[in-house]
């Protein structure tokens, strides 16, 4: 039966997660690029939101959440393609199925949108659109099925409350591969590529924090104690991520920065995501502090040492955070450490093993498929703009618009 309180919460959580992408992530990413590319980033986020929504309706939802019969371990079926059979009366758990499908859709939107940060300022729009379509269907959809749709990882009781693997590892690893395949921006890393509008980026970051309550606490699919605790631990991890990253900057560079503190926040949020329904406040504190510290060093390493131009640091923040969080779920989810306890009374070691399997599987699948899909896309159209177009900026070249026209 429908519970109106649970339904109210899931309606709102859906709005909150969409809000994370539009305008949250769009602003966060848009503010960090140079002003001549700001619209291209916003456009990518909007177009992904639109196209993924239609794909979800057509096959995505069905392939993730219906029974795949013999192939169930690997994929769902097509019985609900075009949302067939979903009516005003359909119910999932205690909420209307329409709301469940919508809530899940918002996760399918934000995941490819996160990858945008890796190839910002140089990828062609058409290639981006084709790649994102393929990626959604061949990376997001299967992994979501494995973990949340009753697939093989679900059968192993792999724990991922709100998308550590499905969203963050997936997007993070894809970002790393995309950065490598598409290549560096002209001038990277010697030339300064400063964020053109940090207040916009910080605004987007604030929206991410708020929206993440829908992401994690919404994943309880009910307005209950589990949702409440998920919100609390999410918040604690975000705050701890802020403080840890700020501390690293203060120690290492002598000055903390606002871009640093919000990046620490995102690291904390991404890392707590898989654990958010399983751990207690103490575990969240540990996870957040680790997230802020480790992701800080991962960013330094990828950007400065390896000089990989994952432009907005998607892998070191989401990828590394997602991996770490998925593994730590196996640790802090244990009742002894303040968590709700592992399934089937498993030990930490046992659960950690399962978590490791899921983590590796996601990394391998996302990494390999992303590489393949980019190569396929490159057969159809150029992946990146020409050097001269890059100089002129994607906004004018690809969209014939300019972001700002501010005169005094």
């Amino acid at each position, binding site marked *: 039966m429908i519970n109106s309180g649970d339904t109210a919460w899931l309606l709102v959580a859906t709005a909150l997660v969409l809000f994370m992408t539009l305008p949250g992530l769009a602003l966060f990413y848009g503010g960090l690029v140079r002003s001549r590319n700001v619209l291209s980033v916003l456009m990518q986020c909007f177009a992904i939101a639109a196209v993924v929504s239609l794909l979800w309706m057509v096959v995505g939802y069905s392939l993730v959440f219906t029974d795949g019969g013999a192939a169930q371990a690997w994929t769902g079926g097509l019985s609900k393609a075009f949302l067939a059979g979903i009516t005003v009366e359909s119910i999932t758990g205690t909420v209307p199925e329409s709301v469940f499908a919508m809530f899940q859709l918002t996760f399918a939107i934000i995941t490819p949108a996160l990858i945008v940060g890796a190839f910002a300022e140089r990828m062609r729009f058409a290639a981006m659109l084709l790649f994102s379509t393929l990626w959604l269907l061949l990376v997001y959809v299967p992994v979501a099925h494995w973990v949340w749709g009753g697939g093989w990882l679900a059968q192993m009781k792999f724990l991922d409350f709100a998308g550590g693997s499905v969203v963050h590892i997936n997007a993070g690893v894809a970002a790393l591969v995309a950065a490598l395949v598409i290549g560096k921006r002209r001038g990277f*890393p010697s030339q*300064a590529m400063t964020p053109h509008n940090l207040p916009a980026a910080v605004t987007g970051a604030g929206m991410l924090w708020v929206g993440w309550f829908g992401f994690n606490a919404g994943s309880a699919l009910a307005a209950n104690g589990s949702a409440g605790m998920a919100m609390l631990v999410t918040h604690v991890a975000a705050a701890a991520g802020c403080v840890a990253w700020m501390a690293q900057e203060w120690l290492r560079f002598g000055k903390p920065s606002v871009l640093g503190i919000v990046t620490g926040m995102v690291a904390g949020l991404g890392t707590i995501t898989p654990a958010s329904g399983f751990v207690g406040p103490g575990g969240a504190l540990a996870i957040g502090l680790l997230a802020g510290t480790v992701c800080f060093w991962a960013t330094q390493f990828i950007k400065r040492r390896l000089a990989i131009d994952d432009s907005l640091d998607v892998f070191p923040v989401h990828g590394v955070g997602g991996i770490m969080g998925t593994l730590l779920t196996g640790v802090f989810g244990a009742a002894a450490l303040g968590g709700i306890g592992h399934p089937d009374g498993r030990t930490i070691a046992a659960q950690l093993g399962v978590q490791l399997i899921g983590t590796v599987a996601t990394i391998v699948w996302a990494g390999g498929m992303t590489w393949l899909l980019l190569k396929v896309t490159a057969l159809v159209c150029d992946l990146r703009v020409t050097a001269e177009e890059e100089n002129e900026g994607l906004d004018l070249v690809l969209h014939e618009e300019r972001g700002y026209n501010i005169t005094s």
Partner: protein
Amino acid sequence: MKLITAIIKPFRLDDVRNALSEVGVNGMTVTEVKGFGRQRGHTELYRGAEYVVDFLPKSKVEVAVSDELVERVIEAITAAARTGKVGDGKIFVTDLHQSLRIRTGETGDNAL
């Protein structure tokens, strides 16, 4: 007539404007510019990526004046813009061949 161009520190602009008024200059044109010189730029840090920004914000003040005012104007600007620290800026003087007030068509010193 001469065109006096001063590159100064932006926060000194109000002082310079007042100083110019005092010596009887009633008009000037100001542009926000970026200056490169002996003054060290600052470092900016974005997620650990370190950029040295060599260009510093400066204000360029342009004043057209009659020849007899030139010395007084230079002195006024110098006094008002000086902090004694590197980066205080420069004053350049060029000859003005002609000047004209669009509204009235007046030319020469009358146009200023």
